[in-house]
C-alpha cells in the first residue's frame, strides 16, 4: 500500500483503515506542514495544525466528492485549519495586543512575531523573514493564501486556483494585490526602522 495513489488510500480511510491514513500522511505531511508554516511561521503551531488536518481527513473522508485531487482537498483542509488556528490565537491575544506591540524596555514598535520559529529559514535570513511574515500577517486572508500557495509553497497557478476554488485570473489578481499590500506594509516598517 506504500506506493498507492492518494485516491485509493482515501477509499481505504473511508473504511476506517488507519494504515492507509498513515500512508497518506507520509505522502502529504510536508505539503500540509509547509502550508501551515506559511500561515503561522512557527514549528509547534504548524505541527499541531498538521495533526488536526489528518484527524479531519480521517473523519471527513466520506465527504470527499472527488471533484478535485486528494492533495488539493487536503491542502484546502490545511488552509482552513490554519486560518481557524490563527483566529483562535488572535482571540486569545486580543487583550494583550497593545502590550505585545511595544517592547517593555524601549517602547519601540516590534515587528518580529514573538513566536517566529520557521524551520525553513536560515539564521542569516531570520531577521528579513521576520519582517516578511509580519507584513504577510497583515494581509487579508484570501491575498495571504494566494501569496503562500504561489510564492512560498510553489504551487502552479492551476493547482493554487483549484485549491482556492477560484479561476486563475482571480488568483493572479489576488496575488498582485497581495504584493502591492506587502510593499505598503514593508514601507511602513522601513520608515519606523529608520
Amino acid at each position, binding site marked *: 500500500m506504500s506506493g498507492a495513489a492518494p485516491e485509493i488510500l482515501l477509499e481505504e480511510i473511508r473504511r476506517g483503515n*488507519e494504515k492507509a*491514513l*498513515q500512508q497518506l*500522511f*507520509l505522502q502529504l*505531511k*510536508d505539503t*500540509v*506542514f*509547509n502550508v501551515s*508554516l506559511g500561515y503561522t511561521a512557527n*514549528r509547534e503551531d*504548524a*505541527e499541531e495544525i*498538521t*495533526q488536526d488536518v*489528518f*484527524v479531519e481527513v*480521517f473523519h471527513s473522508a466520506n465527504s470527499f466528492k472527488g471533484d478535485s485531487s486528494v492533495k488539493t482537498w487536503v491542502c484546502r483542509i490545511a488552509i482552513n485549519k490554519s486560518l481557524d488556528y490563527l483566529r483562535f490565537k488572535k482571540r486569545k491575544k486580543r487583550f494583550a495586543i497593545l502590550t505585545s506591540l511595544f517592547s517593555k524596555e524601549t517602547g519601540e514598535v516590534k515587528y518580529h512575531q514573538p513566536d517566529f520559529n*520557521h*524551520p*525553513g*529559514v*536560515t539564521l542569516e*535570513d531570520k531577521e*528579513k*523573514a521576520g*519582517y*516578511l511574515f509580519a*507584513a504577510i500577517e497583515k494581509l487579508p486572508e484570501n491575498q495571504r493564501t494566494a*501569496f503562500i500557495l504561489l*510564492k*512560498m509553497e510553489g504551487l502552479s497557478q492551476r493547482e493554487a486556483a483549484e485549491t482556492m476554488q477560484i479561476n486563475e485570473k482571480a488568483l493572479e489578481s489576488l496575488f498582485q494585490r497581495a*504584493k502591492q499590500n*506587502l*510593499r505598503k506594509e*514593508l*514601507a511602513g516598517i*522601513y520608515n519606523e526602522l529608520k
Partner: protein
Amino acid sequence: MKKENWIEDIIGTADNIGRAEASTDLFTGIQSRLRGKVVQLKQVPARTVWLAAASLALLVALNFIVITQTTRQTETTAAAPYSLTDSNLNLY
C-alpha cells in the same frame, strides 16, 4: 531608491525559504487523538443511552400528568365560589 531595494530584498526572502520536513512522529499524535475519540464513544454503551432516554421520557410524562391534574383542580376550586353564591341566593 534604498527603500525600494530594501522592500524587494525582504519580499525576495520568500524565495530563499527552504522546504521544511514534518516529523514522522507526528503520526503517533494523530493516532492517539483518533483513539481518544473512539474510547470516548465506547465509554457510553447503547444500553445506557436508551436508559437515559427512557428516564427522560418518564420524567416528561410524569410532569405532564402532574401539571394537567393541578390545572384541573385549580379550575374546579375557582368555579366553586360562584355555585355557592348561587345556592345561597336561592335560599332567600
